[in-house]
């Protein structure tokens, strides 16, 4: 874990909803696991007060990027930063996805849940896995890459319908050993159900409002089944990746 103030390399707009924040740093890019995240903030901005957690999108040499959706003040502010502006980063944080090797694996993402999945796909392929990558969104605005099985609710890109419907069809034709997912909780909940019916282990990356990001404040907890009881686990430190079968979903 590092805490550094460094220059923005580039902010690239993807479309009106999404952008990519690029930085370059030798230390920060060492040993990042797919699914880990950084707490990012413009130190000059008084409001919002706290940094925001963003999953690592791409790592290439000393280059690091974050795919970010504009949802509030912090993300809007970051989207407007120019090259050379100083931002602060704390990370890499969290556990990341547990990697398997030489298996048939499914990657499932929804919307901005796509962010940690390309780096995961890269690492899984490097470990000799065969990967089926399904991504869902409301429209073509939520699609980031042509090379995956895209599913849109309005049919504006790729398959029509919910990504989970198409994943079920995939499961019917291919034997999958393990699944990885990140996306809206409604999608994750359905996916965990589909996987449970087929005894496929599924790892889900979750998101919660965080303060410290390192495990000190206990603000970002979720309920997890542990043995016969239910315990609070920290999304920032115990997660953000959890065994999907153990997550107690919010009502």
């Amino acid at each position, binding site marked *: 874990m590092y805490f550094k103030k460094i220059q923005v390399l580039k902010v690239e707009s993807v479309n009106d909803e999404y952008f990519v924040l690029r930085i370059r740093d030798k230390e920060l890019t060492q040993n990042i696991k797919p699914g880990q995240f950084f707490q990012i903030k413009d130190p000059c901005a008084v409001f919002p*007060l706290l940094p925001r957690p963003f999953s690592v999108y791409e790592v290439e040499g000393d280059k690091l990027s974050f795919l970010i959706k504009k949802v509030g003040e912090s993300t809007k502010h970051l989207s407007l930063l120019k090259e050379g502006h100083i931002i602060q980063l704390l990370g890499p944080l969290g556990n990341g996805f547990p990697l398997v090797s030489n298996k048939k694996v499914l990657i499932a993402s929804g919307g901005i849940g796509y962010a940690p999945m390309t780096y995961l796909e890269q690492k899984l392929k490097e470990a000799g896995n065969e990967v089926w990558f399904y991504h869902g969104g409301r429209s073509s605005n939520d699609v980031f890459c042509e090379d995956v099985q895209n599913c849109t609710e309005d049919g504006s890109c790729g398959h029509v319908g919910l990504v989970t419907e198409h994943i079920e069809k995939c499961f019917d034709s291919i034997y999958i050993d393990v699944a990885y997912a990140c996306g809206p909780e409604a999608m994750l909940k359905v996916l965990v159900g589909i996987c449970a019916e087929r005894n496929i282990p599924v790892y889900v990356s979750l998101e919660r409002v965080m303060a410290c990001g390192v495990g*000190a404040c206990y603000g970002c907890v*979720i309920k997890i089944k542990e043995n016969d009881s239910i315990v609070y686990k920290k999304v920032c430190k115990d997660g953000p990746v959890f065994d999907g079968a153990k997550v107690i979903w919010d009502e």
Partner: protein
Amino acid sequence: MSKCEITFGKMKWKNPVTVASGTFGLEYAELFDLSQLGALTTKTITPEPKAGNEPQRIVETEVGLLNSIGLQNPGVDEFIKIDLPEYRKFDTNLIVSISASSINEFASLVKKLDTQPGIDAYEINVSCPNVENEGIAFGTDPEIVFDLTKKLRETTEKTLIIKLSPNVTSIMDIAKQAENAGADGLALINTLYGMAIDVETRKPKLHNIIGGYSGPAIKPVALQNVYKVAQAVHIPILAMGGISSVNDALEFIIAGATAIAVGTYNFVNPLGTLEIIDGIQEYCISHNISYKNLIGSIQT
């Protein structure tokens, strides 16, 4: 020799900066040598493990943070086994923050911790707004604060710091009772009561509806509490409440605080404490004033 050394109760601090309970942990040892702090303050420990409150536990507001953690902690036995040996590795004072649900429970907790090496002080958390039947239930009644402090004074030789709530009619009365009962120092302020509502769903943003409010927004409130208490007592004050810069820290010291704690700002800048330590020293040098003389030097 550092110019900003202080004595706080029976402790000698190499500098007057610590962290506020619940906003810091051993996790930060990955970023810097925690021995650089004047003292380390633990998250509040209770006699039994505490699951904490139902989420949503935190909400950011305008330059502030609402929390309702509910003192989630593994309990004293686990603390002694797992965390305490780790804390002991740092060459600085260790303040263990504690809470319990009766005076006798508080005393047993202190007795148990007193058998362990490496603890320099207890911060008695009688001001947490997020737990029922403990925390603030003690800290709002001057008589209970007196009885509790007296009992703990009889129980331990170590430095006793009573952490006060701003959510009271007269913080001075409570401060005086703690002093009269033998407290070595006071820590203030704990969080203010606060809440936020989502206007679309018309639901409170915190599951517990009301939580504790911290961060830069509460600094003026904290400062006047510290100023008032400094006028009322002779024991040292560990001041906290929105401190986010050297300037903020200096204001509290000038108002009468012997030491300061950084809380919410640790989440914004985990190295903020170090910047504040350096800044206080630089201020003393550039203003040609000893740290001792700076304390309570407000010109009114």
